[in-house]
């Protein structure tokens, strides 16, 4: 049997392939982006980047109804968008195996909230599996598809950021093809209106009881006993691996399935121990369920309800609970080192927009994408970041509250092309006839940049690639009846400044579409710029446009520090040269023509 090193995400893709999966759909979001990227390598599977998570789930749902094994994958907040179809789909008796793979983000390394997907399992009456290694990620996807078909239920596979990205050794198997019967008409099964939907409440209730019976006996929930210990630790997912590393003086019950729980099994086991402690990341779901069943357990008394439970965090909790660990502990203090926060890339097309908005000192309603970084210093331009597409509704509400309070002033929102197609279309349709002074800047960089450069419907226009699905945001908005729509090249800074400031003076909706492409994704590189230190007055205006290659520098023979551009990092966008008040920043292309002065 071949063994390879795979990430949790890659292992999910492999498991789906081995299980004979036929349709996989997703919307890119960290930490699960790599799942669908990996699925693409398996030619038997139809893989689809949908416009949003709801559509991804619906595509997978359709395949399942037709009998084809299906997978939808998304980040945790994506499930909020997909929850509408999911909460009704779960009432139907699942046909072809259906797994919903969700990536939670304890510690919020790349998300706007820390919600716990396990809560959805109870809400939707479905089984939820939690792998702790890439091998289990592969195995649990396959098992999940079987459980799905055997019990007529969707199954959630819950991953966390660290598991998605961590790698381990995975043993590979071959693909098993499944017979696909095609869609069979069955009105009571798929038409979720009364009285059919009423009947399905009972179906779901019985389904959960059956799954609970399975949980009691399942090898997914396994005890690792420790002779002579008086403590039982109940855990799942990566914290189990950290516990194995720490070697505590305790028996460990590893739950591979955290909904429904094997309550009877835990009740019986707990009788053999002085104390039972639940170690779970995020909300005390297992802890509360066991307490409700009358089992005396502790959990969040010792372990935090937010952030990741790492080896070091778990050790600290165990010490509090007076459980010894045999793994040695070292105490080493970290060095004090300057923080390194994310920043816009060299040549990023969002930079000039943020520079203009900072100067305009206007209220900006933000949205989700790379441009969310506009909240960071030195721009601090975006005043809100909530959820995908939310800027368009929010800005109307702010305007109306201002009007009521007689505090009317111009309002601006920024939204990217990815977010526009994900959940901005209905927001724009809603805004089309507003009479308030609202300016929306669409940052059309032709890609879903933050998640690694997946294509959007405007990628084709830039790449001139006819195989891509192409749309024009301007044409869509005009079709909505919005008249005040302009496209601009934001690297023409003075013009950009004028267009934005004029739009802010007009009542009604103005839309400005900034068309420069993502420099990182499309590898846009022009001759680098340089600073002439003899001309530079050290005013730091260029530093304030905040580009990775630009810093203050001590030049030989010059007392005061002057700005400097690292030629290896500069991609020649020219924005810094346009803000320089003394024209000290020039293109190296001029040097080659003999037109520069250095």
């Amino acid at each position, binding site marked *: 049997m071949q*063994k*390879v*090193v795979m*990430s949790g995400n890659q292992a999910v893709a492999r498991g789906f392939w081995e299980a004979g999966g036929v349709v996989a759909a997703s919307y890119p979001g*960290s*930490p699960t982006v790599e799942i669908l990227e990996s699925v693409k390598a398996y030619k038997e599977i139809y893989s689809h980047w949908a416009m949003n998570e709801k559509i991804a789930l619906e595509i997978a749902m359709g395949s399942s109804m037709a009998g084809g094994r299906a997978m939808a994958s998304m980040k945790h907040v994506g499930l909020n968008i997909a929850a509408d179809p999911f909460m009704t789909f779960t009432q139907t008796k699942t046909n072809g195996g259906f797994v919903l793979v969700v990536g939670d983000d304890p510690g919020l*390394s*790349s998300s706007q909230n820390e919600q716990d997907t396990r809560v959805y399992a109870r809400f939707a009456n479905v089984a939820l599996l939690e792998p702790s*290694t890439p091998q289990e990620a592969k195995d649990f996807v396959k098992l999940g598809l079987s459980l799905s078909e055997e019990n007529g239920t969707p199954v959630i596979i819950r991953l966390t*950021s*660290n598991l998605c*990205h*961590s*790698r*381990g*050794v995975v043993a590979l198997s071959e693909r098993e093809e499944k017979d696909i019967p095609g869609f069979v008409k069955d009105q009571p099964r798929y038409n979720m209106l009364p009285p059919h939907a009423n009947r399905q409440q009972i179906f779901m209730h019985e389904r959960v009881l059956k799954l609970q019976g399975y949980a009691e006996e399942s090898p997914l929930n396994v005890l690792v006993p420790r002779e002579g210990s008086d403590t039982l630790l109940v855990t799942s997912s*990566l914290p189990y*691996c*950290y516990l*194995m*590393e720490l070697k505590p003086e305790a028996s460990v019950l590893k739950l591979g399935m955290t909904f429904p729980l094997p309550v009877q099994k835990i009740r019986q086991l707990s009788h053999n121990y002085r104390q039972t402690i639940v170690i779970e990341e995020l909300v005390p779901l297992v802890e509360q369920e066991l307490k409700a069943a009358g089992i005396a357990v502790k959990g969040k008394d010792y372990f935090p309800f937010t952030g990741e439970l*790492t*080896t*070091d965090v778990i*050790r600290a909790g165990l010490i509090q609970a007076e459980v010894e660990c045999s*793994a*040695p*502990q*070292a*105490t*080493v*203090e*970290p*060095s004090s*080192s*300057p*923080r*390194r*926060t*994310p*920043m*816009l*890339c060299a040549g990023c097309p969002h930079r000039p927009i943020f520079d203009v908005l900072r100067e305009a000192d206007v209220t900006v309603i933000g949205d989700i994408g*790379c441009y969310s*970084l506009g909240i*960071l*210093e*030195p721009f601090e331009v975006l005043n809100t970041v909530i959820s995908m597409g939310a800027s368009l509704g929010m800005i109307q509400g702010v305007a109306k509250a201002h009007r009521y309070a007689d505090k009317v002033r111009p309002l601006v929102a920024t939204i990217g092309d990815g977010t526009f197609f994900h959940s901005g279309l209905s927001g724009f349709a809603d805004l089309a006839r507003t009479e308030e002074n609202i300016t929306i800047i669409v940052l059309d960089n032709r890609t879903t940049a*933050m998640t*690694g450069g997946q294509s959007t419907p405007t990628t084709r226009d830039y790449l001139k690639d006819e195989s891509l699905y192409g749309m024009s945001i301007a044409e869509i908005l005009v079709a909505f009846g919005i008249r005040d729509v302009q496209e601009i090249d934001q690297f023409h800074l003075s013009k950009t400044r004028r267009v934005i400031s004029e739009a802010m003076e007009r009542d009604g909706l103005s839309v400005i579409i900034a068309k420069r492409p993502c420099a990182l994704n499309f590898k846009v590189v022009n001759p680098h710029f340089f600073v002439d230190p003899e001309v530079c007055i050290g005013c*730091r205006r260029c*530093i304030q446009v*905040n580009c*990775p290659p*630009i*810093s*203050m520098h001590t030049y030989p023979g010059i007392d005061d520090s002057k700005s400097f551009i690292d030629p*290896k990092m500069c991609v020649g966008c020219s924005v810094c040269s346009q803000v320089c008040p003394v024209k000290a920043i020039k293109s190296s292309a001029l040097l080659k023509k003999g037109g520069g002065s250095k």
Partner: protein
Amino acid sequence: MSVTSIMIAGVGGQGLVLATRIVASVALAEGCDVKTGDVVGLAQRGGMVWGSVRFGEVVHSPLIPAGSGDFMLAMEALEGLRWAHLLKPGATVLLNNYSIFPNRVLLEKDVYPEDVPGLLKARGLETVSIDAETMAEEMGNRKLANTILLGALSASLPFPVKTWQGVISENVPPKTVELNLKAFDAGRDAATSDNH
């Protein structure tokens, strides 16, 4: 066989994920159990990036508990300093002699630490400085810096050169295999000839 832990630290865009994968694949090819951890996401936009590789007979966790790491490959100096507390006393740091200023340093709100090798030595760590960027440029391609650093790391690990060469060849673009193998040798030589 106890578990050996390697921390790999750098900045978004430095190719750290590939480096982590290569070390892990070498360990697997030599019959070890192996786990790695990675941070990605927002880190892609110039933030800090780290990877951990742990190998041995049985490896439970991808994360390196504080004070237990055996080696660090620091692709950027400040990031080497940031994660130094994960290493045990006497551990070896292969330090790329290269600085990328974080945002707050660019904005003059923080100062980039001077003499990172000295600070690491003061923590009781063996520090081997490698000029991978300059070496790579001399070889004609800045992207070779990572392979040079992997070569340097290989000198400290118990795996045959042949296995490294095989894994690197499988993981770099076919046209660049020869150049990458040269870079690997150069890094390995630099680490072994360096007087710490």
